[in-house]
């Protein structure tokens, strides 16, 4: 519930956008980030993009989350 994950915005259609994450694409709502543009990174939470973030921050957060997920997979 509490987790927000970074992803790259690859399409924008009004209030809806498409993000790319780990090779798959998903439609998300952009209601809360009206000025988000294609190519920017957004934080996703509960189906919504809740914040536009910088590319460096997105990569940093994604790397940290990967470390946690890998540790969980190794020790379920």
């Amino acid at each position, binding site marked *: *519930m*509490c987790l*927000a994950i970074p992803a790259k915005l690859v399409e924008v259609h009004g209030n809806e956008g498409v993000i790319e994450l780990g090779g798959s694409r998903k439609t998300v*709502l952009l209601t*809360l980030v009206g000025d988000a543009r294609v190519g920017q990174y957004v934080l996703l*939470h*509960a189906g919504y993009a*809740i914040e536009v973030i910088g590319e460096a921050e997105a990569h940093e957060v994604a790397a940290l989350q990967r470390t946690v997920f890998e540790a969980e997979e190794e*020790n379920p």
Partner: protein
Amino acid sequence: MISASRLQDVRTALGHWAEKAGRPLTLMEVCGTHTMAIYRHGIRSFLPPSVRLISGPGCPVCVTSQGQVDQIVELSRRPDVTIATFGDMVRVSGSTSSLERERAHGADVRIVYSPHDAVSLAEALPSRQVVFIGIGFETTVPTEAAAVVEARQRGLGNFTILAAGKLVPPAMTALLESGELELSV
């Protein structure tokens, strides 16, 4: 499984940080699920003596009061109500029951991944009163507000949110003012 050598690396690193700090290292987790995971996997017994773990203020679900859970259970018993909720709320027990148990008795309880899904559910079920259980921190509450706007735009009269958002800063302020906080910066 994490290899024994990697476990030893982590143990050594934690011991090193405690030594560098010149006092025992105290870590506070936020959520009760963390506390349970730490116990279940025996992590506490593995940590060096210079590392101390304490339980923190709780996640939005585990700090939901029993009275509020009872209110949610009561809502689910109404024949015209469909409950839409995040999955982690379903098993939480109030004083007499949980959403899981009410669902087994015929209540209409649906798990959604987004408040937006709850709006779509209300649109698909015009004869039902869809109540979204709005439990979450600051990250979740704006998505609920967006769902309210969407419901209005779609002209829905059967969508309600039980507003039960939680703020993190008051919990942090209480910790800071407790006088017992040993903060490392």
